């Protein structure tokens, strides 16, 4: 027990003396939260669009006004089509709306008037926004602000859409808590992977092996300090999310910290396994990046929904601990504790964590090569 305590204290000295571990535990989460809060928007994005008006009638002026007053579009009216097309190619515009010269005449006669929309298909997501915004503005204008509105029968089937748990339709409410899965992966996996690999590289691990330290003491001596660091950093992120960024939290803090601890245990298992197998900081950091961090970012369901992925990739994602963590986080924050979601995800995490712990124990060799 005394040995274990000494190992843990030594590790804490190392943590507090290296500014990079403080940076990763506190500065990095803060930076990520700020970026996700202000720099990343998954809902209604503002885009710039070009407009070319070939119909000088009064009606079209009101239509252009509808475009101008829409808060998601910044329209620029062009006279020169060549310049406009060049700006689309140069990625200055995301779409171009052209209103032909017979537009109002056709509407006056009760016919179908054409509007041409050209989008920049190289930005698929923005092209979709350009289409949806344009459709919505045209419909809105025709049905409720143009002089034609009286001639148009009302839509028969209206949609009454409700977003449960998130009436404001604010993606930050799930992205900010979700981003904790990234910082926790960084601390749990990358940091611990580097730490053991460094001991092997510098030869201090060999020095340790010549003493009376047992295998379980070495393993726990690494697990415990970084676990504590991770949980402190987690508390900091939770505090920032709830108090500073005002993300609604409807669940229970106890449950939140419970499954976070479980996740951290699993992520550290990954990190320690990588480093005790590779024993070299360069390869360990590579492996942590490739095997842990990037999949945690892309396959966890944080930004890209898992159900839309092809089946083999869905299988692959089932061995990624962050997947279970993200599911728990989003649910706990936004809809309160849902046992049907928390329990199965925690079981998966626990199983992965125990397997990894056993593997780390197995791989931590007490013999020199």
């Amino acid at each position, binding site marked *: 027990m005394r040995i274990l305590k000494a190992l843990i204290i030594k590790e804490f000295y190392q943590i507090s003396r290296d500014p990079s571990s403080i940076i990763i535990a506190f500065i990095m989460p803060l930076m990520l939260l700020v970026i996700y809060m202000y720099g990343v*928007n998954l809902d209604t994005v503002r885009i710039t669009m070009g407009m070319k008006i070939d119909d000088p009638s009064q009606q079209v002026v009101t239509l252009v006004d509808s475009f101008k007053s829409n808060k998601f579009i910044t329209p620029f009216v062009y006279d020169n089509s060549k310049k406009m097309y060049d700006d689309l190619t140069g990625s200055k515009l995301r779409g171009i709306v052209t209103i032909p010269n017979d537009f109002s005449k056709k509407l006056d006669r009760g016919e179908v008037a054409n509007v041409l929309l050209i989008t920049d298909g190289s930005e698929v997501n923005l092209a979709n926004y350009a289409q949806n915004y344009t459709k919505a503005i045209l419909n809105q204008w025709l049905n409720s602000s143009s002089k034609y509105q009286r001639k148009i029968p009302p839509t028969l089937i209206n949609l009454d859409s409700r977003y*449960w748990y998130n009436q404001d339709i604010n993606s930050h409410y799930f992205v900010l808590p979700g981003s904790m899965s990234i910082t926790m992966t960084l601390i749990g996996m990358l940091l611990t992977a580097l730490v053991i690999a460094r001991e092997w590289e510098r030869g201090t691990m060999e020095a340790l092996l010549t003493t009376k330290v047992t295998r379980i003491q070495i393993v726990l001596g690494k697990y415990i300090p970084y676990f504590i660091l991770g949980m402190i950093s987690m508390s900091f992120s939770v505090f920032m999310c709830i108090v500073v960024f005002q993300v609604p939290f409807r669940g229970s803090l106890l449950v939140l910290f419970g499954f976070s601890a479980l996740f951290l245990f699993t992520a550290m298992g990954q990190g320690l396994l990588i480093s005790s197998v590779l024993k070299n900081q360069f390869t360990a950091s590579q492996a942590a990046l490739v095997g842990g961090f990037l999949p945690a970012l892309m396959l966890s369901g944080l930004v890209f929904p898992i159900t839309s992925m092809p089946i083999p990739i869905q299988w692959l994602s089932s061995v990624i601990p962050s997947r279970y963590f993200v599911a728990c986080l989003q649910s706990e924050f936004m809809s309160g504790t849902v046992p049907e979601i928390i329990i199965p995800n925690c079981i998966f995490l626990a199983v992965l964590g125990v397997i990894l712990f056993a593997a780390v124990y197995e791989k931590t060799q007490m013999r020199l090569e």
Partner: protein
Amino acid sequence: MLKRILALIRKEFISIWKDPRSRMLIVAPPLLQLLIFAHAATMEIRNIDMAVLDRSQTLQSRDLISEFQHSKWFRTIVLVDNENQVAQLVRTRKVQLALSINTDFAKKLMQNKPTSVQVILDGRQTNTASIANGYVASIVSQYEAEHFPQRMKNTPRINLEIRNWFNPNLIFLWYTVISLVTILATSIGLVLTALSIAREREMGTFDQLIVSPLSSFEILMGKTVPPLIISLVLASMMGVFANIFFKVPFIGSLPLYYFSMIIYLLSILGVGLLISSICKTQQQAILGAFTFQMPAILLSGYISPVEDMPVVFQHLTLLNPVRFFLLIMKGICLKNMAPQYVFENLVPLAIIAVLSLSAASWMFKRNLD
């Protein structure tokens, strides 16, 4: 001088290449990641599971439901009997959305009166939810147009004709693959350089390099050329992969592509070397590289467009090489962008490259303890 530089370059190649594990970790992952993430990182929502509460139980309501059954976006449709079941399915995330049809649905339709259907969406993942809501809206309006065509006769209507330039069918994969090639090339370049000086510092061999007759410029060349060649080769492999397996078109000029790629990689290698020359340990260097890479990718326009960010962030992105290169990549591959637009975005990259590389070489000798 040339001989000395060549010797150093050879030495750098050997130190990256000699270890089979590190060799594997450099070459295999980019291609594997491209393959996996290309299919995972999509904003297209497929395989939606939905619940339907059909209180109307009429021919009309069943017709509407069958429209959903025949659409490509929905996977399973669960018919439920009451609202509690709807709530339970949505809460436990068994379904992503629920549709509720009122008792008077058919009656109102037959009387030609407007009615509404209720859609309940899971706001815990708003981006998925709003896209799914869009699908529902288009299916419902298609149903209305098919079953009640006489309503729209002789009324003014607008037909929005859409053309998606550069990607007529809005294939999401093209966008993802091009962005991924950029991101993975960035990550290779950073990892190769970020550790190179820090590792030598930790081992003490960098001091030997400094006391040798090599000038700072020669050391810089020796540290830049090998990672440049390796990352250029890997980027080309990914490019070929993208073109052959993912059928991403390439319509621009190949020399311009390589010219921009080299300038871009130089800017990334410069940043990596600068980080490496500031850091004292490998741990600091790898975490430093992360602290640069994460915001650079998140604020590059890959996840949400630059023009949608707050003005402060928009100014910050002027320092972000990834932002400029993403534009160039899409421009050259998909749009055959005019050279003047490419150069417009290359100038900032060249400035970043020159500044970071000279700062790094200045730091070589400064940072001796």
